[in-house]
């Protein structure tokens, strides 16, 4: 297993009733996102109600982990003790054309000082944290 992108020690994500299938999906190497059963449209982050048709009836559906960079930032100043020795790192906001353009936050793998291009195609990388308590996975991105 390759090394995680960020230093260990950031808070461990713990699923809630609303996003349990998402976190279970990442552990299994799948991207599962919330879709309304009534109007069949995706929304993210997860909500109790569909903002389009107001149905409370939602499902989680597998989506290809590929998208494009909607925006980005290169972070230099660490605000968490775990990142004091990290150096610069890249956060990307990725939109998913195959899921109604919902957006996910992640990190862009590779050289943290690489040029950052809005619109660049990216593909997902499932970053497993099997030794964490509880174990979890994150969805990271690399240029396609």
């Amino acid at each position, binding site marked *: 297993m390759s090394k995680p992108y960020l230093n260990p020690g950031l808070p461990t994500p713990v699923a809630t009733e609303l*996003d349990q299938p998402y976190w279970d999906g990442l552990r299994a190497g799948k991207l599962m996102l919330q879709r309304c059963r009534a109007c069949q449209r995706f929304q993210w982050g997860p909500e109790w109600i569909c903002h389009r048709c107001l149905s409370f009836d939602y499902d989680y559906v597998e989506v290809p982990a590929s998208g494009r960079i909607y925006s980005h930032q*290169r972070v230099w*100043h660490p*605000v968490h003790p775990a990142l004091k020795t990290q150096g610069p*790192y890249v*956060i990307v906001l990725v939109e998913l054309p195959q899921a109604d353009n919902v*957006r996910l936050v992640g990190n862009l793998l590779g050289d943290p000082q690489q040029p950052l291009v809005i619109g660049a195609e990216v593909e997902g990388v499932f970053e497993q944290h099997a030794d964490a308590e509880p174990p979890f996975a994150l969805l990271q991105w690399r240029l396609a």
Partner: protein
Amino acid sequence: MSTRSLRGRTAVVGLGETTYYKRGQSPDAEMKLALQAIVRACEDAGISPREIDGFASFSNDRNDPSQLAAALGCKELKFSNMQWGGGGGGGSAAIGNAAAAVATGIADCVVVFRALAQGQFGRFGQGATSSTISGNFAHTVPYGLMSPAQMFAMKVNRFMHDHGVKQEAFRAIALACYHHAQSNPRAVMYGRPLDEATYDASRWITEPFHLYDCCLENDGAAAMILVSAERARDFPHPPCYVLASVGGSHYRAGAPVHNVPDYATSTFKTVAPRLWQMAGLKPDDVDVLQSYENFTGGVLMSIVEHGFVTPEECNDFFQFDNLVAPDGDLPLNTSGGNLAECYMHGLGLNIEAVRQIRGTSTAQVPRAEVSMVISGPMVTPVSSSIFGAEATL
């Protein structure tokens, strides 16, 4: 003018501020700071604190109006109001709420206040320190996205990309704020001027924000007193009328995990037209502007969305000479603002706007009669307001 308007119905008649301290350095507890600012505002208005019958604040201020009223011996409490939302977006809305209460007879003498002692309580700019995280933050924090700067940087980067805005536009905003602070002895950055080379050489916090694009964190308190327009001439200072105050946000601005459909915005696109409509004014009428700097990028976007300039004109418009008093086209943050005077969650900007109407700013714009404030860009809800001298009624 519709009767469903705040225009000219209330006025600010008292201003109070404590000393402004660097974060964590206040010798006084937060509630004592709040009380000091309110007492000073009453002294400025020439009234007893016992006459205050309403309190309005924002950003989850920790000082409960019932306790403040008890401490001050207020005869009666009629209005106890909190504007929802964080990040200073309520700085103008709290004034609007106070004005609405006075205009409609809910209360007669309302104080708008904000107090911060981050030494006594927690700090804004720090990340999560718990060992686990759930809900919406679980989708951002594990990727190292947790501070206010990090929450807004991607909006600004997208806006710069869409409109070709250059870093120099942000630099001009920072330089104007620091320039104005040099004539303001109250300012935390008084005596500490900023030049282009220092800005350019300063470290990145997160791109596109250099250190000098980010607000201070301070301890202190500020307060202002509103009464009805009918009574406003009975106080020591020239009245400063509330011409308009609005707040809010666009469609699904609060959508979780950075999924608001219109993302690269300061949140003012739907708010600003209501401000101009209520005031019966247009951008050209504004003599001086205070625009909340959480980050300079938000200042630029909010000035665009209030119609002062198009996105494509930004690189020409945001020049130092254009933003400084007394001769710039749009004198901006004339006390030094959140970058260089003090970060009082934007209430200090509103106090400076009133000072401009009174003619008592340390960077006074000659004959300022229309004085505007923009509060808390990029959060939701945001708010903005316009003050006017008697001649604008």
